[in-house]
């Protein structure tokens, strides 16, 4: 079966896109699809370590992202976006791969379907 590329362009929590992206990524791998989750622009902030949801009622999306990785979702963060967003590599969740624009273009080309969040 073809691969799905899910692209997240928005920072987590401010709107529902990040939560929906990880939810659909998990749904995809649970259905034995191959899923690439690609974080670009402020979407890379989903991969920031140390998110604390205490008192907010939100699901902790750092935890959900880690679950995605454990379940087999390949997660990529755009290198240039990470730099723009002041996100240092030591501060990125383990298992998230930094990718160049060319690598991301290739992933998008390979994918049979793309979902943009």
């Amino acid at each position: 079966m073809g691969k799905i590329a899910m692209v997240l362009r928005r920072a987590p929590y401010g709107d529902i896109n990040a939560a929906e992206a990880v939810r659909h990524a998990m749904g995809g791998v649970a259905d034995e699809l191959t899923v690439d989750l690609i974080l670009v622009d402020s979407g890379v902030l989903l991969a920031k370590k140390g998110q604390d949801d205490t008192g907010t009622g939100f699901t902790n999306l750092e935890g959900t992202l880690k679950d995605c990785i454990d379940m087999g979702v390949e997660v990529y963060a755009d290198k240039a976006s990470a730099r723009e967003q002041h996100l240092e590599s030591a501060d990125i969740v383990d298992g998230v791969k930094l990718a160049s624009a060319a690598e991301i273009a290739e992933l998008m080309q390979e994918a049979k379907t793309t979902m943009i969040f």
Partner: protein
Amino acid sequence: MAKTFTLLLSTSPYSYENTLTAVKTAESALDKGHTVNLIASGDGVYCFLKKQKAKGITNAEEEFSRLIQKGLKVYL
């Protein structure tokens, strides 16, 4: 001195963080003895539908019902 806060909520309950911001700000102002009005406009009115089942995110019905008991005045 007690003041009046009027919040405008115009987004649907589960697509944005505005629900949480409105709930927390309104509750804090009510606890401090201020008058709090909330005007729901556009998709904001969906925050006040009955039988909402949201989990893992601020449940608009539960939270606003609680605040109405505390004195929040809501206008649709």
